[in-house]
């Protein structure tokens, strides 16, 4: 190979601009061809790289993690519950929404937005609730009075019977 090309490639290499193919060309050149004296200082580096690439480790002193398999299993785990949750939400929406989204029946609910009507209907609702609360509690009050009256009568009866026994 032309030594000028190699020099240009070396310049690019040390500036970090070589492609993988160009780096392979450099490795190939320095490992297989007669290298001129002026480029000898670079040879040891590329020979070292080539040797390192050729080493195949087989007997490790430790167990290598099975990275890819674990990753794959993880991905599967994420999607199953996520899919189940989404399905559950969709079913809930279909079944529990006040109006079925697939139904063509129009709602006849009157939605009030006019301020005056809003005020009047709110007033009606609150007064209706208030009146019924008071009606119910009024009856409880009457029961309380009745109970108090009964207690007073009982006290009088007890006092009378005590006096009689004396």
């Amino acid at each position, binding site marked *: 190979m032309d030594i000028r090309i190699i020099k240009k490639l070396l310049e690019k290499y040390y500036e970090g601009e070589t492609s993988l193919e160009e780096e392979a060309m450099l490795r190939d050149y320095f490992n297989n061809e007669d290298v001129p004296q002026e480029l000898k200082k670079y040879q040891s580096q590329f020979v070292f790289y080539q040797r390192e690439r050729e080493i195949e480790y087989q007997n490790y002193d430790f167990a290598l993690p099975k990275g890819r398999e674990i990753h794959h299993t*993880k991905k599967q785990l994420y999607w199953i519950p996520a899919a189940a949750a989404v399905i559950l939400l969709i079913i809930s929406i279909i079944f529990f929404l006040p109006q079925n989204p697939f139904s063509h029946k129009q709602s006849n609910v009157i939605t009030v937005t006019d301020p005056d009507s809003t005020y009047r209907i709110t007033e009606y609702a609150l007064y209706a609730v208030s009146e019924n609360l008071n009606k119910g509690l009024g009856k409880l009050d009457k029961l309380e009075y009745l109970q108090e009256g009964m207690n007073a009568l009982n006290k009088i009866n007890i006092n009378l019977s005590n006096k009689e026994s004396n």
Partner: protein
Amino acid sequence: MKKQKIRILNTIVILIGLSLQLAYSADIDKIMNKYSGQDGFTVVNIPGSSLGYVFNEMNGSRERNKEDDKKIKEIAKDISGIKILTYSKEDGGKILPNAIYNELLAAVNTKEYSQLMNVSKKDEKVMMLVKKDANDKVSEFLMLTYEPDEVTLIQITGKLNLKDIKDLTQPKENKK
């Protein structure tokens, strides 16, 4: 890995919670939608946006200055929605109101509510139910009433102070 599992579980729990919440809050809406448009029924919905506009932005009503109106405003500013269903024979209802009352009572999932009051007389029935939030505050109020010619279902949602509502119609001399 553990953290991711916890995250997944949290997501599922939140989604299930949302689904249940949706199911529960939709219960009354379902009833309202079912009967709306049927003979004798009128269903009115006041959304929170309308209430907010009238009672927070407009400060109640510009024309009203009475004491009771101030009370209504105080109560209504924390309400997030009102729904009213009425059934009346005068509006063309052909079914007996008593039957409608029982039907509505059966349709409400009363297990979700605490019973506040239940009056049952020949010509008058009132069932009041409340739902409370985590802080034990009333967050939903439901009232179903029966009179010989009319049945009314009122749902009020939001922060509710029942004492203030009760005081609206209580004569001053009886107030405790």
